């Protein structure tokens, strides 16, 4: 479980925050509400998750409760694997 979350956190920090660790976000921080991701960012995140964790995210799964925080993403990926 820790691996999934850590992989996601590293990707988000590197890819969306240019490695800036001064910006703190916890496991439940909403990516959209906190301004980390916009709709293009969500698309980018979907691409990363699908290729990294070898899962397919269906159209009706593109929901905030599945994708909008580290905690929700980890739970979602776990159920999909």
């Amino acid at each position, binding site marked *: 479980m820790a691996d999934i979350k850590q992989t996601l956190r590293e990707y988000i920090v590197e890819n969306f925050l240019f490695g800036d660790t001064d910006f703190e976000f916890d496991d439940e921080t909403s990516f*959209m509400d906190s*301004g980390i991701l916009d*709709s*293009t960012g969500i698309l980018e995140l979907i*691409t990363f998750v699908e290729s990294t964790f070898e899962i397919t995210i269906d159209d009706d799964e593109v*929901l905030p409760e599945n994708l909008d925080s580290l905690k929700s993403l980890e739970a979602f990926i776990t159920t999909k694997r």
Partner: protein
Amino acid sequence: MAFSKNDIKIDPAKVTDSLVRQMRAVIGRRFHKRGAVIGVSGGIDSSVCLALSVRAFGPSKVLSLALPETDSNPESEQLAHELAGQFGVELIVENMTPALDGFGTYQRRDEAIKRVFPEFTPAYKSKIVLPDNLMEKETLNVFYLTIIAPDGQEKTARLPLQEYLQIVAASNFKQRSRMAMLYYHAERLNYGVIGTPNKNELDQGFFVKWGDGGADIKPIAHLFKTQVYQLAEYLDIPNKIQERPPTTDTYSAESTQEEFFFRVPFEIGDLVLLGMEQNASVSEIALAAGISEEQVVRIQNDIKRKIKTTEYLKAGPVYIES
């Protein structure tokens, strides 16, 4: 007093007088321009802005421009002629297709579409849409590509990142080229450019930065779409324009603004956003809009996300100091 659907109503005469006064002050005394240039699309927003401009500056000081390109609905140009004729304003038609061809707009866009649907040819039509189920489900704003074959067969797929970005980037040449053409005419006449966004578009980021977002004054940017319709009726905009569903007129396949971006009818979305601004309760908004409280929350969340995530579009260059 409880929030109600009447709260969206305006006094069109009073609003018109106020806007006309301010447009004269800004274009004349502040910017020292001698009139106004406006791109007319056959839609309600540009038509209202043209009518306001005529009241502010007089018909001889307003130049309207129709800026069609190969994907434009021919009805847009017809309505532009009708509008200009009714208000006694000169209309110049500038065909934007050669300029857009020069930029490689269609070739760059189609190249990306073909990577998603290899069978796509220029004989097909295409459009980008958001999921249409916000009233039922809180899906995130991820774009889908729809292609329509010459025989009418439709196919839709979620857009991969690179293809989405390329299609949007190529399509945005359209709005940016139009902006350049508007400024050509504005500068040769020493006129100002009138921008036509309404509040829905400006707040939620439904415009192209340095494209249709580029203008000198935006007189209706504080008005909800349904309020623009109230002004349109008062200003006697042709019925055909008042009755036409708002479209993007950017993609070759017909795409309403609702399916491309807003995801809910304006009558509902406007009340939800106005209710949010007035700090009305979810139950009050639900009652006023005739929808469930769950639906209000979903629409509010969608609007909040769009407002939050489109700051980039609304921001000018940021100047920082060391």
